[in-house]
């Protein structure tokens, strides 16, 4: 075990190093990108389909790339301790690292299809990560839920991408974005938009697709921190931001994003207060943040977009930190229940400090970056193109509730109430686990004090990516003077304190109220059960297990489709002018029909066998009568063998009984229909002359070139020898298969004879 552990440790540092390297590499792009430039790399992937592996680094994608690699390296470091010694540690790191690469692909890809490929890769890796706790049912269910909800959206999005690419003849985002004006008046604009939003909304867990995200918290905490707050869920946000220049500015864009954003933000912040599990509470505040980001993406004003860019960074920093803190608490105390936790500040001082700093940022206290973010949010909300009062009100409620939740998650467990009955005796966590939360929290503070660094480096270039002009970016300031946003901030603090003070009572009320409201999670179960039920029902009907049913459907399909074809495609039937009729011929035909009918109705095996023989001989006589001696001889010999075999088999088989059952008349109608169809088609075929050039060739060449006077035999062994070869293969295999079937369960010893 110790050997194992040290190997894990060595291995575990590899992703940390790689992620860090990537982070540094991306940092080198900062100077250029800060100047508003974009860098594009492209190489061919599938030129026949217009798919390239092209990457674009501009303000927006660089911001994301830095968040992904930066937070990624901290999360990897953290995981080294958090999952140290876990038997699937290597798998975990592999998945998490693959996830990071996929996510980088999403934010850097310039080709829509390549972007989609990476997008789905994040879906797969997150499926495997959420299901990391695969041994319990909940883990498996949550993983599937996340996979299906985001997968469904992704498929719609794929259709949207294909349409977009086909409409503009290119899958390159950088080219499509140039055709923004053309797109907005295009007849397919709304279809494309809705399809793509289906993908982004499900991925970013907008209401009513939000329910999978809290469930995804079944994953280990580093995963929640990385995927479900800082990066993956923001893929949808990223894509909306990326498409903002092309799609924004229409009422559809504005209203869809605003409404979904507002509803998500408000509902999520209310639900967040309800939670007693710290991780769940954070999950809901993540939803709230995603709603807010969506809301701002609906707008076009400089304030709104600056607010988006800033809040994006703010949120990633403090939320990742807080998730990691919750992980530390869980690790140290063995529980995440807000009702039990308390008084951890003394034993976990460093964690407490990190938590405190991050929570202050989240709550929006100056001089933290969160404060600036919040000010900008209010400024942005007041400047929205639609209903500023309504939007500002929503943002106010959401912010105050977030304030309260920050207190519940990061203040109360450390400083309020005494610790009691914790499952484990808490202790301070190790340095690698602390590194993440502390660095992230300090960054939040640092950028709060020096906001212009952040602004120049990332916020302004991001705004430029969306609005096209770096000048549209609004300044990030700690003190912007006494204005409406400041007043709203003050109100936020008061409301937030109120909510925090009353949060237990509120929670109890919420539990009652929400308990009555329809639950999307349960709805999901019902949909899934319905689907399974429907699948079982239709399969039971189709694949019933009854041969009769199968036969009936097959023949009915035959009859139906042929009748429809005959009805719709009139065919010519012209009966010949003069009928060559011989009495012998008529007698033979009557013999065949008679034998057939007797076989059909008889309940005696012997009669059936005899009448089958009669039919066979009748057919052979027809062959003789119409100049086919070889066929006739073969038919007679085969007929003899058929009778011999049937006779031998019947020695062991039970007697026939008359078929009874109320479906027989229907069967008879079906049978009659099929027979009639065949006759009619055959008559139509016979109405036209036949081109005999193949036969003429055989007649001319049979003797001179193939040295045979029996043309039929020459065809069999020379002209069409390949047919005959296949045919004898059938005969051999039929014999082998029958032999195998008869002997298959016998022990080897009972094969008499053949060993001699």
């Amino acid at each position: 075990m110790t050997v194992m552990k040290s190997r894990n440790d060595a291995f575990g540092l590899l992703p940390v190093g790689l992620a860090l390297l990537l982070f540094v590499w991306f940092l080198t792009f900062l100077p250029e990108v800060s100047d508003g430039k974009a860098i594009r790399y492209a190489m061919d992937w599938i030129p026949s389909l217009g798919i390239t592996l092209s990457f674009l680094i501009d303000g927006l994608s660089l911001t994301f790339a830095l968040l992904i690699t930066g937070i990624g390296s901290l999360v990897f470091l953290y995981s080294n301790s958090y999952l140290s010694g876990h038997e699937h540690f290597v798998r975990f790191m592999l998945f998490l690292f693959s996830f990071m690469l996929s996510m980088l692909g999403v934010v850097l890809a310039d080709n829509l299809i390549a972007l989609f490929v990476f997008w789905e890769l994040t879906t797969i890796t997150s499926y495997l990560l959420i299901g990391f706790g695969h041994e319990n049912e909940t883990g498996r269910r949550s993983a599937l839920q996340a996979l299906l909800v985001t997968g469904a959206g992704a498929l719609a999005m794929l259709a949207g991408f294909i349409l977009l690419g086909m409409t503009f003849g290119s899958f390159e985002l950088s080219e499509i974005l140039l055709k923004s004006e053309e797109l907005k008046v295009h007849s397919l604009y709304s279809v494309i938009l809705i399809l793509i939003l289906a993908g982004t909304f499900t991925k970013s867990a907008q209401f009513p697709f939000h329910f999978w995200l809290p469930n995804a918290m079944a994953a280990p905490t580093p995963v929640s921190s990385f995927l479900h707050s800082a990066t993956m869920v923001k893929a949808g946000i990223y894509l909306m931001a990326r498409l903002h220049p092309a799609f924004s500015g229409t009422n559809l864009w504005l209203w869809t994003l605003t409404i979904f954003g507002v509803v998500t933000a408000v509902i999520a912040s209310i639900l967040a207060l309800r939670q007693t599990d710290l991780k769940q509470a954070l999950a809901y505040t993540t939803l709230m943040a995603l709603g807010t980001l969506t809301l701002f993406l609906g707008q076009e004003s400089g304030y709104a977009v600056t607010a988006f860019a800033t809040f994006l960074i703010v949120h990633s920093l403090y939320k990742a930190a807080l998730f990691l803190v919750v992980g530390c608490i869980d690790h140290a105390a063995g529980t995440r229940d807000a009702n039990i936790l308390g008084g951890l500040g003394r034993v976990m001082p460093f964690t407490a400090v990190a938590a405190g700093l991050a929570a202050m940022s989240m709550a929006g206290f100056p001089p933290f970056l969160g404060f600036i973010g919040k000010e900008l949010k209010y400024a942005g909300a007041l400047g929205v193109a639609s209903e500023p009062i309504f939007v500002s009100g929503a943002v106010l409620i959401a912010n105050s509730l977030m304030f309260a939740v920050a207190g519940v998650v990061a203040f109360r467990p450390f400083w309020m109430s005494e610790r009691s009955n914790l499952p484990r005796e808490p202790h301070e966590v190790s340095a690698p686990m602390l590194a993440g939360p502390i660095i992230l929290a300090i960054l939040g503070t640092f950028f709060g004090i020096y906001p212009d660094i952040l602004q120049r480096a990332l916020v302004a270039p991001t705004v430029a990516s969306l609005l096209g002009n770096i000048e549209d970016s609004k300044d990030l300031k700690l003190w912007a003077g006494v204005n409406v946003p400041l007043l709203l901030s003050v109100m936020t603090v008061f409301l937030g304190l109120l909510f925090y003070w009353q949060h237990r009572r509120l929670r109890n009320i919420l539990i009652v109220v929400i308990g009555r409201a329809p639950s999307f999670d349960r709805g999901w179960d019902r949909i899934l059960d319905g689907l399974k039920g429907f699948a079982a029902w239709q399969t039971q009907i189709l694949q019933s297990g009854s041969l009769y049913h199968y036969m009936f459907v097959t023949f009915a399909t035959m009859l139906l489709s042929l009748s429809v074809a005959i009805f719709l495609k009139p065919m010519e039937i012209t009966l010949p002018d003069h009928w060559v009729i011989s009495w012998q011929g008529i007698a033979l035909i009557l013999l065949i029909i008679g034998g057939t009918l007797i076989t059909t109705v008889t309940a005696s095996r012997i009669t059936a066998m005899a009448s089958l023989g009669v039919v066979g001989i009748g057919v052979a006589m027809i062959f003789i009568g119409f100049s086919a001696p070889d066929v006739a001889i073969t038919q007679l010999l085969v007929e003899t063998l058929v009778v011999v075999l049937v006779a031998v088999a019947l020695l062991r088989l039970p007697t026939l009984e008359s078929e009874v059952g109320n479906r027989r008349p229907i069967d008879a109608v079906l049978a009659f229909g099929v027979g009639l169809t065949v006759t009619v088609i055959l008559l139509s075929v016979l109405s036209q002359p036949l081109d005999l050039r193949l036969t003429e060739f055989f007649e001319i060449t049979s003797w001179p070139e193939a040295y045979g006077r029996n043309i039929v035999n020459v065809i069999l062994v020379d002209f069409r020898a390949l047919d005959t070869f296949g045919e004898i293969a059938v005969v051999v295999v039929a014999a082998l298969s029958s032999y195998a079937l008869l002997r298959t369960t016998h022990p080897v010893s009972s094969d008499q004879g053949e060993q001699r």
Partner: protein
Amino acid sequence: MNSVILIAGTRYLAGLLLIFSIYMLLRGHNEPGGGFIGGLIGSTGFVLFAIACGTADARRALRIAPQTLAMAGLGIALLAGLISVIFGDPFFTGQWLFLGASDSEKGLPISTVLAFDIGVYLVVFGSVLTLVFAMEEEI
């Protein structure tokens, strides 16, 4: 089925049918007959034999397992088709050798086509017997 006369009779009949079947096989290229018909007739002889004397005797008389015979037939037919490739012709091109050919007479034809038909004969013969013997033994 223990009648001595019947057993002796079927032995001769089987032999007779076998000879007749080979005759049918050989004349097949020019008159009704050929590998199928020959094989079917030949096997009928053995089927009778098996019914009269039992399959154990019939298997002994045959010496080789019928399924091996059938497979060998398939192999012969395949080789007959493949020989042409040696001569640079496509698969299944008939190769003819006329023994003692003169200007007026084509002579005795030896050909891959005949070999192919022999393969067919063996396949049909072997397969039918495989089937019938196995079936008989099952009862």
